[in-house]
C-alpha cells in the first residue's frame, strides 16, 4: 500500500503556530492573531499533508457537482413522457434518480430534492433557493434530515428550468433519490466538535464526489445512504447503510487517521443498528471498503423484492460474519483489480475564519436571549467561538427567511457558509461569542431565533401527507404541533429533558427516524366500530450514538391524543425519577427492565388517555391535523414499484 503522499504545508501566514493538536498527528493549525482594522483572521488548515489531485491545497478545485447535460436530458425526457413516447415506469425511475420525486396522488407535480453534500451550503445557494421557492414552488423550501433541500409542489415541466438555475450555483439533484448512493451526510459539528479526533468533512465530500455519476452506482438494488459523524455522540453512523466515525490509531509507531466503519444499519421496516466491519479502517482503505460493500450489495442484493432489499436485509440473510468476511475479501480483490489507483480526492478546506467587523452600537439584549444561548447554541473547540442552531418547524423555511439567513451568515459566521443539520435545521458555525447578542436580535427579526434547538422541543417530522404518496397521517403538522406545545409550555428549559428527542414519521418507513428517538411516532390508523381515526404507534427509548438502540413499542395513540400522552409520560417521569436522572436515562432503564416501572406499566397508565370517544361526542378526534374531512386512508405508489 503505497499511495503517493504529496506533502504540503500551508504557507506561513501567521505569527503564531500551534502544532500537534491531535496527539502526534501532523495536524497543523495556523493562526493569525494580528488585529487589522477590519477583522481578525484565523486560518485553519486541515492537515499537514494531503493526497490531493489539485496541485496546491489553497487552490480551488475545478470539480463541479452540477452538470447541465443532466438538465437538458431531464427536459427531453419530460417531453417524451408527456408525448407518450417514453414509458411511464421508466420515466418514474429516471426522474426519481434525478431528484424529481413523485408528489402525493398526482403526476402533474414533482418534489425536487437537491443534495447538499456534507451539508455545506453557501449564502449564494440559499439565496437561489429563496428565489426558486417563490418562482416555482410554494413560497418556502423544506430542509430534510439528510442534508437535502426540497422544493415541493413544483410543476413537473418546470423541473429542468429549476435545475438549470441550481446548476448556476453548483447544486445538483442527481442521485438524491432512487436506487443509487444518496447524499453523503456529515455531522454539522464536524470541524468544531470538541469530542472529535479529526474533521471528517473532506472525506464526506470526497466520498460524495467519488460516487456521483459513477457507473458503479447508477443502478444498485436499492438506495444507499452514507453518513460521516464527527464523534460518537453527534451523528447517525449506526443507522445508515454505511456510517463512519473518525478514529486515530498508532500503526507501526505512526499515528494514522482512520474510521470505525459501520455497515448494514438502516431505519424503516426492519430497522437495524449497523455493525463495525473491522477494528480500524485506515483512511487509505475507506474508498476500497465502500466499493467492496457496494459491489457485494450490487451482486447479491435481492432485486426481486424491493421491499426487502436494503443492505440490512442482505446482511440478515447472509449472517454478519459471512457478510463481513465477504466484504474484506472483496476489498482485497478491489485493491488488486482497480485499473487505476483510487484515492479519495480530499480537498483542502482551509476555512478562512474571518470574524466580520461589527460597528458596535449600543447592543440591546432582547428578551429570551439567555435561554436561546443555553438551548440553541454550542461551544466549539475553537476558543471564543460558538455554533448556532437555527431550528425551524419541521424543516420549513420561507423564501424571505432563506434570503435573510444568507445575509446573516455573511454577517456573523466566521466561515461565511453554513451547514445543514441532521434534524431539519441550519447550523451557523464560527460565531464569535461577542457577536451572539447582536446575532440573536437579527435572528429574532427574521423569526429564526427559536429556542430549544438542542432540546426535546426540536421535533423532527417527515413531510407526510403534505406531499408524500406513502403517508398515512399528517406527520409534518404533528411535529409542528408538538414543538409549539413544548415551546409554549417552556419545556425546552427543563434540563431533565435535554438529550431526549421526539421524531415523527407518517408511515412505518421512518424518514422521520422515529425508531431512534426517545419518543418516536409513526403514522397509521385506529378504528372504533366503523369509524376510523388517524393514529401513531408510539415507541420509547430509541437513541443514536455509540449505543444506538431501537425504540420499544408503547401504544397505538390516536393523533389527537399524542400530545396529552407525551405530557402524561413527562408527569410520570417527574414523579418517579431518581436523583441524577433525566428523561432519557430513566426511559432507558424502564426499557431495560432496570426500573420498578415497566413498559407494560406505562402502557396501562396511558390507556385511559387513548380510548376513542364516540364520533358524536368528539368529531375532531376522527380527523387529522390540517383537515376537517373524516379520516380515511388514501395512499399512492411509492417510488419505482
Amino acid at each position, binding site marked *: 500500500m503505497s499511495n503517493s503522499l504529496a506533502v504540503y504545508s500551508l504557507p506561513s501566514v501567521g505569527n503564531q503556530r500551534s502544532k500537534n493538536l491531535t496527539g502526534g498527528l501532523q495536524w497543523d493549525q495556523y493562526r493569525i492573531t494580528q488585529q487589522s482594522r477590519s477583522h481578525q483572521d484565523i486560518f485553519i488548515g486541515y492537515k499537514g499533508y494531503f493526497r490531493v489531485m489539485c496541485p496546491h491545497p489553497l487552490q480551488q478545485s475545478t470539480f463541479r457537482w452540477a452538470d447541465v447535460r443532466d438538465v437538458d436530458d431531464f427536459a427531453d425526457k419530460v417531453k417524451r413522457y408527456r408525448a407518450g413516447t417514453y414509458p411511464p415506469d421508466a420515466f418514474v425511475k429516471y426522474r426519481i434518480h434525478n431528484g424529481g420525486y413523485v408528489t402525493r396522488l398526482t403526476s402533474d407535480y414533482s418534489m425536487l430534492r437537491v443534495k447538499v453534500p456534507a451539508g455545506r451550503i453557501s449564502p449564494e445557494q440559499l439565496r437561489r433557493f429563496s428565489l426558486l421557492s417563490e418562482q416555482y414552488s410554494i413560497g418556502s423550501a423544506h430542509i430534510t434530515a439528510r442534508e437535502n433541500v426540497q422544493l415541493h409542489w413544483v410543476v413537473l415541466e418546470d423541473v429542468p428550468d429549476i435545475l438549470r438555475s441550481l446548476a448556476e450555483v453548483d447544486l445538483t439533484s442527481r442521485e438524491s433519490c432512487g436506487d443509487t448512493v444518496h447524499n453523503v451526510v456529515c455531522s454539522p459539528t464536524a470541524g468544531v466538535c470538541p469530542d472529535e479526533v479529526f474533521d471528517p468533512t473532506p472525506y464526506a465530500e470526497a466520498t460524495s464526489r467519488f460516487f456521483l455519476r459513477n457507473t458503479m452506482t447508477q443502478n444498485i438494488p436499492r438506495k444507499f445512504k452514507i453518513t460521516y459523524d464527527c464523534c460518537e455522540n453527534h451523528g447517525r453512523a449506526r443507522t445508515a447503510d454505511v456510517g463512519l466515525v473518525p478514529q486515530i490509531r498508532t500503526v507501526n509507531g505512526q499515528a494514522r487517521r482512520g474510521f470505525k466503519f459501520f455497515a448494514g444499519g438502516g431505519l424503516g421496516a426492519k430497522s437495524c443498528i449497523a455493525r463495525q466491519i473491522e477494528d480500524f479502517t485506515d483512511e487509505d482503505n475507506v474508498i476500497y471498503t465502500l466499493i467492496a460493500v457496494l459491489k457485494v450489495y450490487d451482486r447479491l442484493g435481492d432485486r426481486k423484492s424491493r421491499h426487502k432489499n436494503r443492505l440490512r436485509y442482505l446482511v440478515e440473510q447472509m449472517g454478519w460474519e459471512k457478510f463481513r468476511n465477504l466484504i474484506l475479501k472483496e476489498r482485497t480483490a478491489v485493491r488488486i483489480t482497480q485499473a487505476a489507483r483510487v484515492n479519495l480526492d480530499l480537498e483542502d478546506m482551509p476555512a478562512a475564519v474571518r470574524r466580520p467587523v461589527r460597528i458596535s452600537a449600543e447592543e440591546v439584549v432582547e428578551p429570551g436571549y439567555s435561554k436561546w444561548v443555553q438551548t440553541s447554541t454550542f461551544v466549539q473547540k475553537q476558543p471564543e467561538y460558538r455554533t448556532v442552531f437555527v431550528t425551524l418547524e419541521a424543516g420549513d423555511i420561507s423564501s424571505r427567511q432563506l434570503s435573510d439567513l444568507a445575509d446573516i451568515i455573511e454577517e456573523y459566521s466566521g466561515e461565511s457558509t453554513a451547514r445543514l443539520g441532521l434534524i431539519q435545521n441550519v447550523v451557523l458555525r464560527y460565531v464569535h461569542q461577542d457577536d451572539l447578542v447582536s446575532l440573536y436580535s437579527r435572528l429574532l427579526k427574521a423569526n429564526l431565533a427559536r429556542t430549544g434547538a438542542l432540546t426535546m422541543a426540536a421535533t423532527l417530522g417527515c413531510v407526510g401527507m*403534505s406531499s408524500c404518496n406513502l403517508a398515512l397521517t399528517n406527520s409534518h403538522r404533528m411535529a409542528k404541533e408538538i414543538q409549539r406545545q413544548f415551546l409554549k409550555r417552556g419545556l425546552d428549559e427543563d434540563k431533565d429533558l435535554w438529550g431526549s428527542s421526539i421524531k415523527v414519521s407518517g408511515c412505518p418507513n421512518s424518514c422521520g427516524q422515529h425508531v431512534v428517538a426517545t419518543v418516536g411516532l409513526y403514522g397509521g390508523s385506529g378504528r372504533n366500530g366503523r369509524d376510523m381515526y388517524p393514529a401513531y404507534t408510539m415507541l420509547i427509548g430509541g437513541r443514536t450514538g455509540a449505543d444506538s438502540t431501537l425504540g420499544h413499542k408503547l401504544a397505538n395513540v390516536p393523533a389527537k391524543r399524542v400530545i396529552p400522552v407525551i405530557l402524561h409520560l413527562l408527569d410520570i417521569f417527574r414523579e418517579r425519577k431518581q436523583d441524577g436522572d433525566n428523561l432519557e436515562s430513566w426511559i432507558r432503564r424502564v426499557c431495560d427492565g432496570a426500573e420498578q416501572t415497566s413498559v407494560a406499566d406505562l402502557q396501562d397508565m396511558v390507556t385511559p388517555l387513548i380510548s376513542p370517544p364516540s364520533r358524536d361526542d368528539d368529531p375532531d378526534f376522527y380527523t387529522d391535523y390540517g383537515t376537517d374531512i373524516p379520516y380515511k386512508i388514501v395512499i399512492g405508489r411509492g417510488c419505482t414499484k
Partner: protein
Amino acid sequence: MGVLTNTDALRSGIADRSVHVVDARTADEYRAGHIPTALNLSVSSIVAEQNAGTAARLAGSLGISNNGPLVVIYDGYFGTAAALVAWRLEHAGYQNVSLLECSYANWLEQGLEYDYDVPDIMHVGYSVKTNPSMVATIRDVELANSSTILVDSRRRLDFLAMHIPGAVSIPYRALSSPSSVLRGKDELLHLFANRGIGVESNVITYDNDSGTLSALAYYALKHVGVDGVRLYLASFADWRRQKMPVETQQNATYGDLAA
C-alpha cells in the same frame, strides 16, 4: 412600443421631458421619495372604483392625456401595481403606456436619482374609449374551450387549494427576476411553453380579486408576443361569488408545508 421601458431610456426621457413618469405606489410611499418628475397615480385609487373611466379621469387630473407622450409606470417591488395601472389606462384608451423594467427598490439599489418634488400639474381633459378586447368576462371564462388557456397568477398554495377548472398555475413571482419586473423573453417563453402556451394561444389571466397579479401576467404574455391575452378583471373572487365550479388538489395537506 414595447411593454418595458429600460432605465436608460427613462432617464433620457426624463431629461428631455418626453415621458410621463407614473408612480403606482401609495401617496405616503410617493412622498417619501420617488423617481424625478413622477406623478402619483396609486393603484389603490384606481381599484377603488371599478368604472373603466376612473383611470382616465385620474390620469387627466394629473395632466396625462391619452394621446400624449409615453407613460412609464413603476411601483415598489414586484411590478404588479404598475401593471394594473398600465392595464387600466390602456383599457380606457391610452395607447402609449409601458412598465419601467425595474422596481423602485431596484432603482434605488442601482444608486439612481430620486427626489421629493411634486411636479406642477396641468389638468387636461380626458376621454374614454374602452378597449373591450382586453377584457374577459365571467361568461368568456365559463365558455372558454380547450383552445383558451386560463392562467392563475396567485401563489401556488392558493392554486392547489382551489382554482377555476382547467387553469394552469403561474405564480406571479415566476414572472419576475430579482432585478427586473419581467424576466427575459427566453425564460418567459419557456415558462409559458411548459404550460402549452405559445404566441398563437388565446389566454385569459386571473388572480384573486384586484387584478394586479393577473395584469402582470397579461403584460408578461404581451411582452413575449402572445397577443391573444385577456384579463378576467373580476377574477376568482367573482367566480366564487357566482358559485361557479372549482377544482381542488385533494387528499394532501400541502398548506402545512408552508413556513
